[in-house]
């Protein structure tokens, strides 16, 4: 049998079928283009690319941006003016923001919002107006272009924003100082009403995604059981995943959701969702749910394992040890992919070390095969 391409491996595994080798890939946005990245790709590392299938148009809202000095720091203030009033957000941008990809600085950090869009109860009607005047229109060019460029080197996903309640929690109200929870306790009706308005406005986006050229729709929810507790997950998140998955599945698409936090407290609820791919699941020590347990609980799901940044922080030897332990834990390696990093740039040394372990991971994995990989790297097995 001919060796599978990187794309075939990822898609096979994502459809719960066997690939020839354990698929491993790097996120385009974290990829350190250069000699190490090239070497790793030559040795089997794929690429995942996330691009949107839509463009956003906001009607009857004036949007302006100013550069200001606040407390001696440069902030960028974006003001949205509607017939109901204005709201604004302030953000600090790291050097490099807007100069390479997305809104990330040279060190791969996103802007820090020092003032959120929603500050008090008076902001809710204004934001609701903006939501109700937001239109999503299809634009498949970014995905088609990336697919053309990548070819068999990897996969292109259709990226979606945080789902409605997570948009409020992470983006618009923010969780600093527990602000979202306090708003949710103090102004439950305002939060619920806005959440429903966002959900309604996003429905056309799901339709657009379902017809997009991407095989996988990626919802970047950033689920962490510490922030999103089971009550919130069950009430606000699960119904939205059901709505999304129904449309996507009808068009043969898979739904992937970013869950890189401590999701142990949500594990039984996650099992009940129609999500196909749990993206960026971090095993202990960063996460709190071992991969073996997750696989056995979520029998209808595929896990893309996020390699923990806290292990990378300890250097290549720790990376090797953790990767070998991970392989031992996941034997025989079905329904799995490994992501080199889902949060930050990886050093060349760590990327090469992880590739050295994963490039030899032929499926189905056995303990003997992992021992052999360890021996080949100068280990003791």
């Amino acid at each position: 049998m001919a060796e599978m391409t990187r794309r075939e491996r990822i898609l096979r595994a994502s459809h719960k079928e066997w690939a020839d080798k354990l698929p491993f890939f790097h996120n385009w946005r974290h990829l350190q283009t250069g000699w190490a990245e090239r070497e790793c790709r030559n040795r089997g590392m794929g690429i995942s690319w996330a691009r949107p299938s839509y463009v956003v148009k906001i009607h009857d809202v004036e949007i302006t941006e100013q550069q200001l000095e606040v407390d001696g720091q440069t902030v960028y203030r974006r003001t949205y003016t509607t017939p109901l009033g204005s709201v604004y957000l302030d953000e600090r941008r790291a050097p490099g923001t807007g100069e390479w990809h997305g809104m990330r600085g040279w060190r791969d950090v996103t802007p820090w919002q020092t003032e959120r869009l929603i500050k008090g109860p008076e902001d809710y009607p204004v934001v609701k107006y903006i939501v109700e005047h937001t239109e999503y229109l299809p634009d498949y060019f970014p995905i088609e272009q990336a697919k053309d460029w990548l070819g068999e080197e990897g996969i292109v996903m259709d990226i979606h924003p945080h789902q409605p309640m997570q948009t409020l929690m992470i983006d618009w109200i923010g969780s600093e100082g527990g602000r979202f929870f306090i708003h949710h306790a103090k102004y439950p009706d305002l939060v619920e009403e806005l959440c429903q308005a966002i959900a309604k406005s996003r429905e056309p986006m799901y339709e657009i995604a379902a017809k997009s050229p991407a095989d996988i729709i990626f919802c970047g929810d950033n689920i962490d059981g510490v922030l999103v507790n089971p009550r919130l997950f069950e009430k606000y998140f699960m119904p939205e995943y059901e709505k999304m998955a129904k449309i996507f599945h009808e068009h043969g698409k898979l739904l992937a959701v970013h869950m890189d936090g401590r999701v142990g407290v949500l594990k039984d609820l996650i099992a009940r969702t129609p999500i196909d791919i749990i993206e960026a699941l971090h095993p202990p020590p960063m996460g709190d749910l071992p991969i073996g347990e997750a696989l056995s609980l979520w029998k209808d799901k595929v896990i893309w394992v996020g390699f923990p940044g806290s292990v990378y922080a300890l250097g290549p030897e720790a990376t090797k040890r953790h990767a070998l332990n991970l392989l031992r834990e996941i034997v025989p390696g079905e329904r799995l992919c490994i992501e080199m990093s889902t949060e930050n740039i990886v050093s060349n040394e760590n990327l090469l070390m992880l590739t050295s372990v994963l490039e030899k991971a032929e499926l189905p994995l056995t303990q003997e095969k992992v021992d052999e990989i360890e021996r080949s790297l100068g280990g003791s097995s």
Partner: protein
Amino acid sequence: MSAEKYLQALRESIVSLDFGAVVKAAQGAMAEGIDPNLVINEGMVPGMAIVGEKFERGEYFLSELVVAAEVMKEGLKVVTPYLKGESTQKLGKVVIATVEGDHHDLGKNIVSSLLRVQGFEVIDLGVDVPTEKIIAAVREHQPAILGMSALLTLTMPKMGEVITTLKETSLRGKVKVILGGTPVTDEFAQSIGADHRAVNALEGVKKCVEWVTAQERRN
């Protein structure tokens, strides 16, 4: 209404996360001339303790801890003016910060609130705090404990930088160092020479209480 009924109402308002009820009960207690220290120590603090117990049993989550602390703050706003400069006993000082480059403060803030409830004096330096500012605060306030938080693996090494600087400036032996944040592991904490890595906010606060209590016994 008797004093006990007001105290009960305060406890219940915190446990049920009721902003309106805590203010009403606190105002009522003050109007009745009930000792504000009693209101805090027998009404609000036990209310937070019940919330903590519920958190440990898995009935409440971080969101409830955060909101309960906020509800208590609303009650304290009513009661504090009646304290008339009376000092409450402090367990010790804690300097706490989110390290440079990191802007996450949810965990840090809940730890700060819970430490205050326990009776610590908390000097909260905020987020994105440079190493030199943390060192200066340790030198100035001479806390029993330094707490550092990071949510980004990118900023975790700053915790090591602070500990190294504490050693270089002969301050390390005078302060316990506790770390928190999702990516921070025991292995990492040990590798940089911290005293403890908090599993969660409550566990971290318990460790702080344990440290100062042990210190008091030695004294």
